[in-house]
């Protein structure tokens, strides 16, 4: 005979829910955790590395052209005789900063345009979506190249904004689709009937319901922002002061480090860019699986 389950108290239900969540989490654990730890490690290296290793000037000359790794320069020197290891730490910083600025700008514009278009509908939606579609069809690399040329000085902030204003349409399109379906929910009607102004309504009644989605879009935008920055830098259109992973690669290519066999000048930034992209992709796809059970496979 099996025991008839007792009516559960709120506390028990909460614990059961928590346990369920933990079970789901442990299913996703390997990929999500691996991505998180990897990204955390890279962030730590970029933010605290310079203080831990007491290497705070990436532009300091410590040797000659392409000195191999040694006790003073752990990963050798670059084409100007600067320490590659120090540059890596600052490079991660710059690359992530530009990625974060670009991701934030793109997500903000995308969410704003997407929610307003999806919620208001009518003429406003038509116009906003026409704008979005046009920006999507014009290849982003063209706008990126032309905008970068138009700015004579390209600071970190300018770079981030340039990338952000070219990559928002994907977010806008997806957010609009979500908003259109959320708009007809009852709680939204209730809020509207009780006189909440449109923007407040979008902010409190619609955005919270697709927050997971927005986070995912942000991670994607962050990733593409970092890679776009590297690509632009390698074309010779990077930030004009400071060091980023892409700029390290640009110098390494220009000064023939690959063909002269100075692997320390190009392998580390290549590897770090790949690791950053890989960790963000792991995070993004595992977040995807949490919310989309069809993608889960045991």
């Amino acid at each position, binding site marked *: 005979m099996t025991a008839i389950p007792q009516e559960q108290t709120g506390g028990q239900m909460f614990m059961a829910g928590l346990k369920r969540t933990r079970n789901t989490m442990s299913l996703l654990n390997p990929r999500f955790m691996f991505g998180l730890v990897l990204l955390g490690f890279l962030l730590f290296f970029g933010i605290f590395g310079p203080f831990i290793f007491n290497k705070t000037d990436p532009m300091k000359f410590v040797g000659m052209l392409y000195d191999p790794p040694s006790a003073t320069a752990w990963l050798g020197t670059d084409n100007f005789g600067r320490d590659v290891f120090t540059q890596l730490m600052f490079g991660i910083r710059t690359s992530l900063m530009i990625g974060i600025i670009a991701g934030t700008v793109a997500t903000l514009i995308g969410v704003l345009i997407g929610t307003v278009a999806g919620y208001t509908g009518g003429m406003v939606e038509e116009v906003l979506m*026409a704008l979005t*579609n*046009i920006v999507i*069809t*014009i*290849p982003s*690399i*063209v*706008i990126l*190249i*032309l*905008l970068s*040329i*138009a700015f*004579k000085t390209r600071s970190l902030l300018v770079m981030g904004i340039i990338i952000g204003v070219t990559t928002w349409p994907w977010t806008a399109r997806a957010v609009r689709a979500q908003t259109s379906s959320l708009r007809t929910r009852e709680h939204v009607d209730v809020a509207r009937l009780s006189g909440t102004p449109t923007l407040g309504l979008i902010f409190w009644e619609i955005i919270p319901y697709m927050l997971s989605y927005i986070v995912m879009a942000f991670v994607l935008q962050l990733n593409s922002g970092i*890679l776009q920055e*590297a*690509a632009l830098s*390698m*074309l*010779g*259109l990077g930030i004009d002061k400071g060091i980023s992973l892409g700029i390290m*690669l640009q110098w390494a*290519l220009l000064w023939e480090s*690959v*063909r002269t*066999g100075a*692997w320390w000048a*190009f*392998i580390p930034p*290549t590897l770090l*860019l*790949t690791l950053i*992209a*890989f960790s*963000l*992709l*792991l995070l993004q*796809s595992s977040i995807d699986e949490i919310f989309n059970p*069809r*993608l889960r*496979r045991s």
Partner: protein
Amino acid sequence: MTRFQRYLLNKAFWFFLAFFIALIFNFLLPRLMPGNPVDAIVGQMATGGGLSGEAQQRIYAAYIAEFGLDQPITSQFVTYVSRLAQGDLGISFARSPARVQQLIGQALPWTIALQLPAIIIGWTLGNILGALAAYKKGWLDRGLFPTSMFISSMPYYCLSIILLYVLAVFWPIFPAGGGYSYALTPALNWTFFSSVMEHYWLPFLSLVVIFVGGQAIGMRAMSIYELDADYVRFSRSLGVDDNRIIAYIFRNAMLPQVTGLALAIGSLVSGALITEIVFGYPGIGSLLFSSIRQNDYPVIQGVTLLIMIAVLTANFLVDITYGFIDPRIRARASGD
């Protein structure tokens, strides 16, 4: 006018609108630079030396005439467009007598010869692998998925750099860059052709690998999605032959992949700019790179225009083809 014609007209309208706006960008942005670009360029040439005062004057006059910088911006735009219509992209700043369309015409065949086969082969292989991983599951899926994931998260230029180092410098199996041996001049003979082929493999390989990874992931996801669809369960319950079901799934999963192929061919010009730079391959990427370093704005503008036309046209063609092959779109276009 039928509804389908209206759909076509609508798409054509958006195509031309996007093209026009992109054209304005292309025209305007380099002109927004602080100061007169011509001053900056001629000044730079002068500090670089090697230019006589007379040559400077001549270049300066040529550029001012070229851009019509003394005229109002609207008539500059009209001049720009009417020259474009005749296929004239202007004179290169850095390689002065050469016209932009000549430079692009020399570089473009290299890019197409490198990219087109890489895209087609990578696409085919990737789709087969992705579909197999979704159907067979097991070790193939477990092995293939993380590998493809890692490869396709790797920026394509990173793989190029590593391949160049490993296969051309560390183990010198392939030549380390260039489109052909520097000792040769381009000619239609066997020595030149074999040199070209020898230099072809490495950049080709690096592009194929990246493409396979990306396609495999996409195809796997699409196939899993279709495998789970109701029509598959229903067919199974009816006892429909497995091969037939697979054929259904394949057809449905392929649709977005075909779009992907068309768009990849459209972005062929811009798809591997940096791979070309890494390998020193004499295509559009290398041309763009040297033009950026020399502030050669007419060439940069020519290249961005070319990228734009290719991408927009591919998008447009995909839209039209979809209108033909996908009944859902026809239905939506007619407002049912």
